[in-house]
């Protein structure tokens, strides 16, 4: 088994694509169910963490701005590290991720040893 980083992104700003309250509660339930299901399949390399929605962004001129990130269309919703045998398997797992429900996406990266592979 190799480790893969799954990075969740979506547009949290544009009002037209945001879930309403009821949808949001159901959406959170599905996140929980997804994590629990991955835990039961022994797919979690590290325990999932919760991330706040405040955030800061540091730009090239070293200026620091607080979120929300008007200039960044999609921001990070969270990340996990999973265990999978291949990119294909990792992608299959990512297809079940609730971030996709509201136009989000998942970026996948495989962990490699320090000496490269």
């Amino acid at each position, binding site marked *: 088994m190799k480790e893969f980083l799954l990075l969740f992104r979506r547009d949290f700003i544009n009002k037209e694509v945001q879930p309403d309250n009821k949808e949001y509660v159901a959406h959170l339930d599905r996140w929980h169910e997804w994590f*629990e299901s991955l835990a*039961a399949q022994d797919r979690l390399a590290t325990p999932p963490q919760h991330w706040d929605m405040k955030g800061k962004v540091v730009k090239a001129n070293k200026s620091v701005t607080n979120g929300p990130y008007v200039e960044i269309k999609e921001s990070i919703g969270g990340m996990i590290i999973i265990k999978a045998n291949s990119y294909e398997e990792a992608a299959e797992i990512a297809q079940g991720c609730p971030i996709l429900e509201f136009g989000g996406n998942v970026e996948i990266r495989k962990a490699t040893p320090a000496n490269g592979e």
Partner: protein
Amino acid sequence: MEERALLPRLFRTEYQKIVSVLCSLFGIKHIEIAEDIVSDTFLSAAEHWNTKGVPENPTAWLYTVAKNKTKNYLKHNNIFEQKLMPDLKAGADQSEEIELDLSTKNIADSQLAMIFTICNPVISGDAQIALALNLLCGFGVQEIADAFLTNKDVIYKRINRAKEKLKEANIRIEQPSLSEIDQRLETVLTTLYLLFSEGYYSTSQDTMLRKDLCAEAMRLSYLLVENPATNKPAVNALLALMCFHSSRFDARLNEKGEAILYEDQDESLWDKELIATGEYFLNQAASGNTLTKYHLEAGIAYWHTQKADTPQKWESILDLYNSLLILEYSPIAALNRTYALAKARGKQAAIAEAEKLDLTDNQFYYSLLGTLYTDIDNSIALAHFKKALSLATSPVDKATITANIDRLSNHG
């Protein structure tokens, strides 16, 4: 009859106490000398009590004789003296006479120190359990061999190798400092948990022996709870877990020693007193801010002491298994979580989750699928039970699966 049973009983309770005190005094290097002195004490007891009758206070008699034998050993054994004296604990001046302190407090302190010595990661888990049974619980090599379903030679070698390793590593017999207790305690709890499981889940047919193992694991856990330094939430949680499980000990086997499934158990055979004791320790465990796997497992075991199938029961068990799996994955927890999911959310939801587990070398995986498919698609259920039967090895498991196959075939 009473008198003949007395000595073995005292051997079980007192042997380990005196050995612990002597080991604490002498150090791990001289563990055999400690064992010799105590064995010799019991030999004297057997001879004297046989001819002159049992003394009024047999325990006090044993302690006095052990003290004298220790003194004599120190006095008459020159080589021994040269070897041992440098190792004796500080405060014991060479010229001073060694007095063996067999007070209740020193016994408890010595036993606690011995628990930490034996539950040391330098020796393997199996060896820790064997050594704990031998030195902390007064079990003979034959009894330990019976518990592990192996022969005396294997256990004898395992115990001696473990002792050698402790000596080589020069492990000090002492209670850990307050700052390292949490870390050291983790290993101790793992060993006590394994010791209990050995008794509870062993396939040995000897029910008395298995109960003894569980009782000893509980006694040692209680020793930790009684000492303020080791009375930690995790220890209380482990003790609660053991109480809840033990409460069903008599209900889960029939007269032939066959397993009775949880759902078919006679609730009136559950030990209410042990359940209440478990609840007490579970409440004691609910302090501090670390949630250990013992807390979660004790919570799951608590809900199993409530026989009625309420939605709250299965939602709670499901939540606890989810947390447990995130803390520490195990195939059996994943399977049990899926069963709880079926109880809480229905079989269809559970089947979808079960098929993702893909534990294709695990008989319990197929038994679970068989159970989930029963009444949904009995031919698929039957195929799963047959697969489970082909993987099962123990007679108890085979009988349980065969009963399921028969039930489905008759209805089919």
